[in-house]
């Protein structure tokens, strides 16, 4: 192999070629919409396409990737392609695996990847991870090990020099519930990689390059330089934060984060975090890394395209066997319940040094999920999944947005779709007054949903099953810089707290209340402009009572006038009493 070395591109040519790299992945990405079967892929875009240079260094990634997959893939794919010697690869090879430890932390994320050859030389690798809705197994967060959770596909060749290994496909087909869909989506993955490989070769040809090496060097080092410049602005030091996460049973989980800024490097050490657990909440290293990366990228370089350069300044060390770097064969299906907290722990650690770049705790951490299923009165089965968020944390200069999944992402299920798919009635889906953590900037509001199980002629056959994956029943989203916590999550069955983490069996006539938590506030609420509090009260985001008790602003009910005299009385005394926070 004799690549042209040492070619430097002028800044204009570099930008043009760089754009082309990104547009190649975007084209591969959009091909999925045409070829994938499951709606999780087509509509929720739960997949990531990317390609690397021949050393496995990530060069470009689809623009709409989800943070969990995208951060995990950058390191996962690099390790995978380097697990074989370079001369092992042949044109037409296609590899497949869903090893949670190799990739994105649960069995449903299946990776398909291939070498790209140009002029008979290995030039690059193309890879994509799709979230398959079905991977067999027992679908639950309380499994004890990964074997219960579904089919485990080790790193194997699906095609060898262009020849399909039918046995691998058959093995998959017979271990999942919806084989046509799963196999169809795997074919879509192969197709996406094809598009990517084709376009990479075409680009090399059109730009007269023999390899991507020099371009990769420059794209990566420029990206790295740009993110390092931002990190360098923060004073060196060791910054700590602790995350406490409630769990289904047993002690709280602790995440200990020590974030060291050393010049332009960020070294995150999670030593002292809780050991792995015997349910599905365990997080593999890559997924932990992904949400640490999410925090740092969002702080320092939210707009620059993802490639290996973004990740280079970030080092993560986590002792093996902890809940944030679990060992095989731990159960991992409910990894988001713990993994999503990484982002806010990093924000909190760095909040004093970069107060403008972080937000308070969010009610959408972790992403919550309701799985309802049962049988209609004519015994027809039904099944519906709702993913949901909460109020986002406030920042130093902005109120928290209302009701989002954060740091992950996703969309809700419309009430009308839910009701047409199930025999249930949704009686309410509304913002929860006073749920946003008080602060100079207010935390985002959570929401309340009421579900009713009919007991008339539409009554389903009992039981109606409700599986919930959620958090924040015990520990609300924390505020920042004197801001207060948001409201907690709540799960009530007929007005009485139910099993908030596991499976609940319901009967006709039951009413379920699910409150999504609010986000934390930022800054002393007594410093919030009284007019903003007045506005919040007018719109019903904050009640008259809480305006007085939390914000020290007295609003006259009915007219919504600010009682300035009373407000000064309360604020005057308490602000001085508290001192500045």
């Amino acid at each position, binding site marked *: 192999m004799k690549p042209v070395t040492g070619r430097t591109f*002028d*800044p*204009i*040519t*570099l*930008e*043009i070629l760089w*754009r*082309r790299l990104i*547009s190649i992945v975007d*084209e591969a990405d*959009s*091909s999925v919409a*045409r*070829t994938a*079967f499951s*709606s999780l892929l*087509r*509509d*929720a875009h739960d997949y990531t396409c990317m390609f690397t240079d021949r050393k496995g260094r990530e060069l470009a990634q689809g623009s*709409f990737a*989800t*943070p969990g997959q995208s951060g995990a893939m950058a390191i996962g794919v690099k390790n995978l392609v380097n697990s074989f010697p370079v001369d092992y690869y042949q044109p037409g090879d296609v590899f497949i695996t869903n090893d949670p430890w190799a990739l994105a932390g649960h069995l449903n994320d299946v990776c398909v990847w291939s070498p790209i050859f140009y002029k008979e030389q290995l030039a690059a690798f193309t890879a994509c991870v799709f979230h398959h809705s079905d991977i067999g197994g027992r679908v639950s967060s309380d499994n004890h090990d990964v074997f219960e959770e579904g089919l485990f596909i080790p790193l194997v060749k699906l095609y060898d020099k262009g020849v399909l290994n039918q046995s691998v496909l058959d093995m998959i087909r017979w271990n999942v519930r919806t084989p*046509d869909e799963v196999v*169809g989506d795997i074919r879509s993955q192969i197709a996406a990689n094809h*598009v990517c490989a084709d376009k990479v070769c075409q680009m090399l040809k059109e730009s007269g390059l023999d390899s991507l090496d020099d371009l990769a060097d420059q794209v990566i080092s*420029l*990206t790295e*330089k*740009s993110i390092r410049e931002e990190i360098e602005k923060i004073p060196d030091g060791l910054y700590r934060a602790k995350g406490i996460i409630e769990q289904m049973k047993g002690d709280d989980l602790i995440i200990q984060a020590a974030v060291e800024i050393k010049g332009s490097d960020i070294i995150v050490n999670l030593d002292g975090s809780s050991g792995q657990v015997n349910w599905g909440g365990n997080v593999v290293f890559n997924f932990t890394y992904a949400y640490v990366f*999410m925090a740092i*990228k969002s702080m320092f370089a*939210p707009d*620059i395209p993802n490639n290996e350069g973004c990740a280079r300044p970030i080092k993560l060390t986590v002792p093996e066997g902890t809940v944030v770097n679990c060992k095989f064969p731990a159960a991992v299906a409910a990894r988001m319940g713990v993994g999503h907290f990484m982002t806010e722990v990093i924000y909190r650690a760095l909040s004093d040094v970069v107060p403008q770049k972080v*937000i308070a705790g969010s009610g959408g951490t972790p992403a919550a999920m309701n799985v309802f299923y049962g049988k209609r009165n004519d015994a027809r089965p039904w*099944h519906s999944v709702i993913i*949901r968020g909460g109020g986002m944390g406030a*920042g130093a200069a*902005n109120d928290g*947005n*209302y*009701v*989002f999944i*954060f740091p992950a*992402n*996703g*969309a*809700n299920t*419309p*009430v*009308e779709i839910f009701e*047409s798919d199930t025999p249930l009635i*949704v*009686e309410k*889906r*509304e*913002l929860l007054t006073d749920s946003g953590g008080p602060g100079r900037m207010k935390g985002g509001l959570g929401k309340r949903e*009421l579900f009713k199980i009919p007991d008339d002629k*539409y009554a389903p056959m009992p039981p109606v099953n409700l599986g919930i994956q959620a958090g924040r029943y015990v520990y609300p989203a924390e505020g920042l810089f004197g801001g207060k916590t948001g409201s907690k999550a709540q799960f009530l069955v007929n007005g009485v707290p139910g099993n908030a983490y596991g499976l609940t069996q319901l009967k006709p006539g039951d009413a379920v209340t699910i409150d999504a938590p609010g986000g934390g506030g930022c800054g002393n609420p007594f410093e919030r402009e009284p007019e903003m509090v007045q506005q919040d009260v007018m719109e*019903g985001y904050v009640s008259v009572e809480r305006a007085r008790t939390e914000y020290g602003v007295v609003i006259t009910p009915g007219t919504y006038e600010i009682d300035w005299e009373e407000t000064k009385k309360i604020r005057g005394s308490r602000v001085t009493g508290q001192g500045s926070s």
Partner: protein
Amino acid sequence: MADKYYRLGCDIGGTFTDFVLLNDRTGEIKTGKCLTTPQDPSDAVEEGIRVLEATTPDFVAKLDELIHGTTLVINSIIERKGARTGLITTKGFRDVLEIAREMRYAPYGIFAEFPKPLIPRRYRVEVDERIRSDGSVIKALDPEEATETVRALLAMGVESIAVCLINSFENPAHELTIEEIVAREAPAVSVSISYRVLPQIKEYERTSTTVTNAYVKPLTGRYLSKLAGRLASIGFKGKLFIMLSSGGVTSVETAAEFPVRIIESGPTAAVIAGQYYGKHFNISEMFCFDMGGTTAKSCLIQKGVAGVVPTFEVGRVQRFMKGSGLTIQVPVVDLMEIGAGGGSIAKVSKMGTLQVGPESSGAAPGPICYGRGGADPCVTDADLLLGYLDPDYFLGGEMKLDKEGARRGVEERIAKPLGVSFIQAIWGIHDLINETMAGAAKTHIAEKGGNPKIVTIAAFGGAGPVHAYGLAKKLGSPRLLVPPNAGVGSALGFFTAPRAFDLLRSHKVSLTNAAFGEIEHIFRELEAEAAKILEKEAAHETIRYERSLDMRFVGQGSEVSVPVPAGDFTGLTKDDVRRSFDEVYEKLYGRTYPDSEAEFINFKVRATLPEKLLQLPRLEAGKDQSLDAAVKGERLAYSQIVRDFIPYTVYDRYKLFPGARFHGPAIIEERESTLIVGEDAHASTDEFGFLWVDLKGAGA
């Protein structure tokens, strides 16, 4: 009518109101332009007509049709200048508008802003009623409570009321009752009920669309009736049509009732013109490319038909970020808009590379060369310095361009800081904006299942013809089409737009359980409704109905549109329908799944009046049919092939004649734009004055 043989197209834009007058007897086309009058846009309409009358006396009385497009509606949403609007909704759901779909549009942007709902929370009120997903009533609406609720909103001073109740698309009874109550309590207040605006499943999308309709309804109604009155007062006796976002036209009454359907009427004219050219010239795949000052809008037209998508966004907080705007669910031409125009600003990025766009210097101050105080080098500056534009013939010479200023700007702000030569800098700006457009085009074309290697690029807009050649090289496209003068080119769309209206009703039922008699009934209701609407437009013409279905696999999140043959639906078997569904599905997604159950989601009817044919005006063959006479001279301009300045022959487009053929390197100038043809391409003019550039047949 034989004595009415003129048609007038009139498009109110942000800056200019454009006119195009067609004489159906002679095919002659005249254009006009005057400044838009935001206070009362009908001022500009009258003014423009007066100007046209100077050269075509008394045409107003002979007008058969006036087709009107306006940005008034979209601007009032963007500027939040609509009516104070109230929303009446089902108890428990007043926040649907604000909670929306819970999706973050910028995964790493934690400070991303979201658009504020058009109706603040205190103007969103509830009534205690409930309809089940099958349309049956769980809790009946209490008319007294509803009346109280309406009165409460009126007491708050609302001028317009939106009504959107859960599951109303299956049973509109409660919405209809509230509509009556509003009409009785306050006849002057406008009301929009979701069942009429968008009887479609998914409460957020339906509420948002209904609310937007309500928000702009009073001002649209006022404007349109004023316009109609004004036209009548100057002797107009023809039919007034309003352009729809979907590419059709509709009556004033319907537009006033459903203003949400005319939001995107502005940019669709070029697409409709494109569709017409696609059919007229029998081009199977055409990429319509309209590049102006701020943005480039493109659209793939396959077999003369542009894609129509069921949803779009207005008022994006971040202009080019999908998901950052308000969702509107009405059919709209599938346009891709990116921040690439003549005014796109070039600068050094944070990474130390060149960046061009999406920020734009707009019309003011504009590029440096406009000499209006702009200091940032723009795409137009680079185009000028590359020799593509003539500083003395911009807008036909109306505006002198400052080449020296542009040169200094590029030198100081781009070449020096980047450490590249001046020529690298100017070519870099031109090439990079082409790269940006090509990247977006490839994705757009791929999504539609097209192939950039076979598309004909139809170039519109001031900057379109300047960049079309470079874009074609990047896409590998073989051919360019440049209609005679960009202005008329797109305005022709006004005369070729189908007079069509789309109606839809949601009703979810599996194919197995569906009663075809019931479906036939839904279709007939929709057709009757459409007939009512279209009869207002043209009482004596025959209406053609096209039925279609939105279907999906049970449980899937999105639907495909399946055509339905004409005739009674009960004449079809379930196997027929299933076969059509599988065919469409396979064509779109490569395979289908015969064992999985399919279901119906929406029933749709498109009602169309017969197309009024348009004869493209033929280019007059002048006396002097020699190329030499059309040559204005020669100038040095940049060649991307030899990467240096070479002499280009400059042609005057107005002196080109049918059958004229010449090789690149060539520059063809007209008042509104300039076409660049590289040395590996050749150009020809056809009998209609269209320029064709062939990139593959060079040297032939």
